[in-house]
């Protein structure tokens, strides 16, 4: 039994990347909305961080969906998922959320960036500028709906796996919450990284705002991971065996302690705390911290997907 090939393995790493990208997209949008609402108001479209999120969110969710479709054994039949629905299927409901999310996401981007786009259009394409004006007028509603959809999307990736009743490590009520929080933190990291790469000020209000949320978020994530594994161990039997196998010795144990806990949580937490006391944030600190968080969340997705499937009862 090797780490990437074993009996009973059904879903491979492309699914982990899809889970990662969907959560990242939801998280980026969530933080862009928070930035606009609490800090930037009407000037939001000028912020490189909001701009970065507006690029990252649609690209990530579309790339994720592309990977998902390519991973079907009949990719050309993917439209059947859109036509037929099964209300008891988490995947079916997730596809609905994903579709609605994408539509509302583009509507939100249109409304937030309507004034620069209008300027650029200069009365060309009157239909499009009418649509943008309409979106801008309803920005409140669009934003509210998008917050709900992004949180649903973030949790959905966890529900998708927790519906697999034969695997104690996956069939776990903490998993959707863990995926939601780690997805949000990957979105925050992607927004920060994209923002500073687009010449955003590494010491600006946006970075300070996100970093303030990031510290409690990392602490919550650590708590959830702890609850997740302690819960499994305390329930005994197969769950205990599964949990101890996953975080014990061996390849995935290393990934968990070194990658997820070390690189993904401890280092970003330490950097964040350190940046809080030092008054000045530099490009390199922000970029490195964000990259570590991203790597950690990507590893977490792979770790859960693979070790989860190793533990069939």
């Amino acid at each position, binding site marked *: 039994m090797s780490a990437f090939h074993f009996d*009973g393995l*059904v*879903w491979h790493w492309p699914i982990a990347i899809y889970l990662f990208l969907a959560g990242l997209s939801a998280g980026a949008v969530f933080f862009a909305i928070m930035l606009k609402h609490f800090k930037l108001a009407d000037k939001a479209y000028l912020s490189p961080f909001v701009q970065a999120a507006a690029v990252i969110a649609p690209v990530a969710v579309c790339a994720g969906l592309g990977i998902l479709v390519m991973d*079907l*054994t*009949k990719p050309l*039949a*993917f439209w*059947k*998922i859109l036509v*037929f*629905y*099964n209300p*008891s*299927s*988490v*995947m*079916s409901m997730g*596809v609905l959320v994903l579709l609605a999310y994408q539509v509302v996401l583009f509507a939100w981007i249109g409304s937030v960036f309507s004034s620069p786009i209008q300027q650029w259009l200069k009365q060309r394409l009157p239909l499009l500028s009418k649509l943008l004006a309409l979106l801008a007028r309803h920005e409140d509603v669009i934003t509210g709906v998008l917050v709900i959809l992004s949180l649903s999307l973030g949790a959905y990736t966890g529900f998708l796996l927790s*519906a*697999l*009743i*034969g695997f104690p490590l996956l069939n776990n009520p903490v998993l959707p919450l863990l995926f939601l929080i780690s997805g949000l933190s990957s979105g925050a990291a992607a927004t920060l990284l994209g923002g500073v790469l687009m010449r955003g000020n590494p010491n600006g209000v946006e970075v300070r705002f996100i970093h303030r949320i990031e510290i409690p978020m990392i602490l919550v994530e650590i708590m959830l991971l702890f609850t997740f594994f302690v819960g499994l161990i305390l329930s005994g039997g197969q769950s205990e065996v599964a949990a101890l196998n996953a975080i014990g010795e061996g390849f995935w144990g290393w990934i968990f302690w070194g990658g997820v806990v070390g690189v993904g949580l401890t280092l970003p937490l330490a950097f964040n705390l350190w940046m809080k006391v030092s008054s000045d944030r530099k490009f390199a600190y922000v970029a490195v911290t964000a990259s570590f968080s991203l790597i950690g969340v990507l590893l977490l997705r792979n770790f859960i997907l693979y070790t989860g*499937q190793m533990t*069939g*009862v």
Partner: protein
Amino acid sequence: MSVYTVTKAPQANTSEQDSGLKYAMVHDENLCIGCNACEDACREVNHVPYGVTRVKIERSGPFGEYPDQSYRFIRHSCQHCEAAPCVKVCPTGAAYIDKETGIVAVNEDRCVGCQYCIAACPYQIRFINPETKVADKCDFCQQTQLSEGLQPACVLACPTNALVFGNLKDPDSALVKTLKSKPTYREKVDLGTRPKLFHVRTIDGEIVL
């Protein structure tokens, strides 16, 4: 034993009315000799490609001292769960329970190959058919033998009559008589899937704690 006239095209019948039919199967591990005739017959009748299979007989043992040695043979195939996880998770309804017969079947036209059902089946007996690219598994020969009014291929092929197939709702059927005369067990009942594949446990197999 009665002849089975049922079986329609996939999802032809979705009404709730009681058809008086519910198919199930018993595998008597004491009678099974592990000859694999069931797997071969199934492969031939249902055109199952090599490398995958709808039914597998797993052998464990030997138990006891020579010359009194014995093996245990366990049948692995679809359990035709009453509360089927594969049906619950399938996004397109391609995995479904035929209301008229209780058979858990796959509608090939609807399956997109997302493999969610394969991951969801706690018995790990689903697979992607390498030729059709569609989720595949035992369907009690619904589309082959049953539609001809015959017993499933594996049942007919078994030289020791270790397999009994029939209608759970018919008290006079050989199936119900077997279930009433021998103690049976079902796999992983604690998951709440309510399987309709019953096993008669080997008497002199190993004792596992």
